[in-house]
């Protein structure tokens, strides 16, 4: 089994693992973690597809997927930050509304 395929399969496993947890958990922070793991799985697939050996066994990596993954990582961190901001805000609002009537 080639290295590229091995890591591709690992990427798919990560994606599905993340998807499973994201769909089943109800804790928001954990769901965000799971979505990040999903993303890492997809990135792994890109990076694995870039990893190829030429006919003489020399390593040739395709730079395009690397650039795509770099973009993807930045987008992922932005989305995570927005999600976390919302989780915190939600937490504040709900604790405020719980204490309100007292």
């Amino acid at each position, binding site marked *: 089994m080639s290295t590229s395929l091995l890591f591709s399969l690992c990427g798919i496993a990560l994606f599905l693992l993340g998807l499973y947890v994201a769909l089943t958990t109800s804790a928001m922070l954990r769901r965000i973690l799971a979505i990040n793991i999903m993303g890492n799985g997809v990135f792994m697939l890109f990076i694995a597809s870039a990893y190829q050996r030429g006919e003489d066994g020399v390593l040739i990596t395709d730079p395009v997927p690397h650039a795509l993954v770099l973009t993807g990582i930045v987008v992922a961190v*932005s989305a995570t930050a927005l999600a*976390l901001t919302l989780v915190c805000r939600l937490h504040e609002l709900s604790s405020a509304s719980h204490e309100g009537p007292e």
Partner: protein
Amino acid sequence: MNATDANSAVPPLGRSLLAIALVGIGLVLGWALWHQANAQASLTATVMTELPNSGVTNPVTAVLLNFRAFDTMLELAVLLLVAVTAGMLGERRTAPAGERPAETVSVSPLLLSLTRDLTPVMILVSAYLLWVGAKEPGGAFQAGAVLASAGVLAHFSGRSWRSDHRDTSIRMLLVLGTGAFLISALAMLGVTGTYFDYPVAWAGIWILAIETAATLSIAVMLYVTFCAVMPGGDRP
């Protein structure tokens, strides 16, 4: 918040069905990949042919800053969008009486001195990554992230940088990155007649200038976002 509720969203039967479905999807995808494994396609050759025309020698930087600069511009817009939204939500954060976490973390002297020594080092590392990105691994995003980490570290040690997004200079820095891309793209439309088409002769220096702007902007955007999440972060 202890995750005792971690599994409560779906009943056990649903969870096992979901797991079976996902394993099935995994098998299908794995099988599809397996069959595709021999056909090795890549854009390496195309990139390498055009690399001399890109102004840099690191192929990843060439793709990011030249061949697919449009993606990168939009990606910076994503960061900007999150920084602005996080700033807005942070601004709205009102202190419910008596509950406001007074953020006086007990800062250990060790952390303080570590920060003092590390911050300049990190700024240097960031500058190095930015500079070297044209030839070797590195570039604006890595440099910006390291710079932002320096800010985060400073924040943890209680000496936070300015991060109020209502501050004019901060806002200018926020738009600087996306703006540099957009202005250069439009300028190129005027000069060369093609959007984002850098003349080969000065593509290198042009890309470095854009990357410098992007680095600063990325660092500020990440830091502002971080401060909006941080407890009591956006107010000194």
